[in-house]
């Protein structure tokens, strides 16, 4: 047998398998979650609009099929509550698939929202561009609203809750500047934070810069 033809067959066969795999009920929604699970904890992947919409489309199809099977049972003058025929189990499978897809989509949004919330505590009120690009429009809104709510609460308390997440040993800290930050007003005086310079400043002031990767704690 010609090996090239054999290889072609193999490709076709693999493509076919792939289609069958994706076509199994609920498979697409699980792909979304697999994507989420495959990255390290606390990291975000780009929002997958395409797959998300395809799952919604799948849901609509399940709904149509479900309706038509129920109509079929009703047309045959059977009691919808007690009938256990082939149409009933077809409808049950479509209904279960619908619920399954919904669970997948909800879990996708929920788990992303959890990560997005945590960003407010680690990065601050403004997200860097490379993270913003990964968010969906509604997620950006969510982040802004969440951020506003936390800020309102903190100003009510008159306390910055996002600093001192690690219990401090000393109110002051030695830091090395990594990026050009420029003139910054800390307390009463302004200091110039140029790259590679060392400073002895208040820990509370340094913490946001360290979290953003602009400074590091200087240790001998």
């Amino acid at each position, binding site marked *: 047998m010609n090996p090239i033809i054999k290889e072609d067959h193999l490709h076709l066969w693999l493509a076919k398998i792939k289609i069958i795999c994706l076509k199994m009920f609920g498979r697409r929604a*699980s792909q979304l979650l697999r994507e989420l699970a495959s990255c390290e904890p606390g990291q*975000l992947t780009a929002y997958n609009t395409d797959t998300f919409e395809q799952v919604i489309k799948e849901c609509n199809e399940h709904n149509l099929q479900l309706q038509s099977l129920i109509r079929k049972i009703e047309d045959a003058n059977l009691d919808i509550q007690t009938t256990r025929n082939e149409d009933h189990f077809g409808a*049950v*499978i479509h209904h279960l698939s619908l619920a399954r897809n919904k669970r997948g989509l909800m879990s996708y949004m929920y788990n992303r929202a959890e990560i997005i919330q945590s960003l407010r505590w680690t*990065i601050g009120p403004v997200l860097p561009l490379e993270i913003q690009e990964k968010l969906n429009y509604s997620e950006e809104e969510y982040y802004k609203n969440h951020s506003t709510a936390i800020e309102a609460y903190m100003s009510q308390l008159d306390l910055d809750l996002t600093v001192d997440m690690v219990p401090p040993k000393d109110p002051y800290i030695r830091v090395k500047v990594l990026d050009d930050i420029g003139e910054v007003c800390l307390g009463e005086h302004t200091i110039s934070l140029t790259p590679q310079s060392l400073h002895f400043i208040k820990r509370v002031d340094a*913490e946001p810069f360290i979290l*953003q990767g602009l400074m590091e704690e200087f240790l001998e």
Partner: protein
Amino acid sequence: MLSYYDIDDILLGEEPISVVFQIGANGVGLLDPGSETNNVEKSAKVDLPFWLAHELFLRQAVSINVPSCYSLKTRKEIQADAACVDLRFRSPYFYELGCKLLPLVADKSIGPFLRYTFTSRYKEILCKSHSITGATPKFSSKLTKEESLLLEAARSSMVAFKKWRVGGSRLEKASILGRKRKPTMPTQPSGP
């Protein structure tokens, strides 16, 4: 622990289970690749994801066959040397799936078998986790999801312990902003 939004619990539901339909179902021909109509016939043997198989079993529409990852062959391999068996290949949710299947199948020996497997592999994982340095070791590709979490927990607490002993910076850049620090200045060619 388990909730509606739990990703692992949802992904565990994707594991394929071989079932036999006790009654036909119309309009779902897609489930049976061998079917020529849009229906699944009675006594058709089909692979369904666990979430669907489970629900249909509760409605007495299908009967469930024990998946091959709990077969006699696997059991013999585990008995020979539990730590060497590639469980991830068999099912990344080997233990969780087994626990969920137990009430649904007649073979009750799966329970003790899972327990034996876990306890004999547990020791090995903990011992190895203390000696890991740097890259992920080869044997971790054989672990199930739960075992990898265990390994990671053991490893990270070892790292935390060492860090605590040595001391060092406790404030770090937010992990989402990237692991490696971009060099702020172009690296100088090393002088003479």
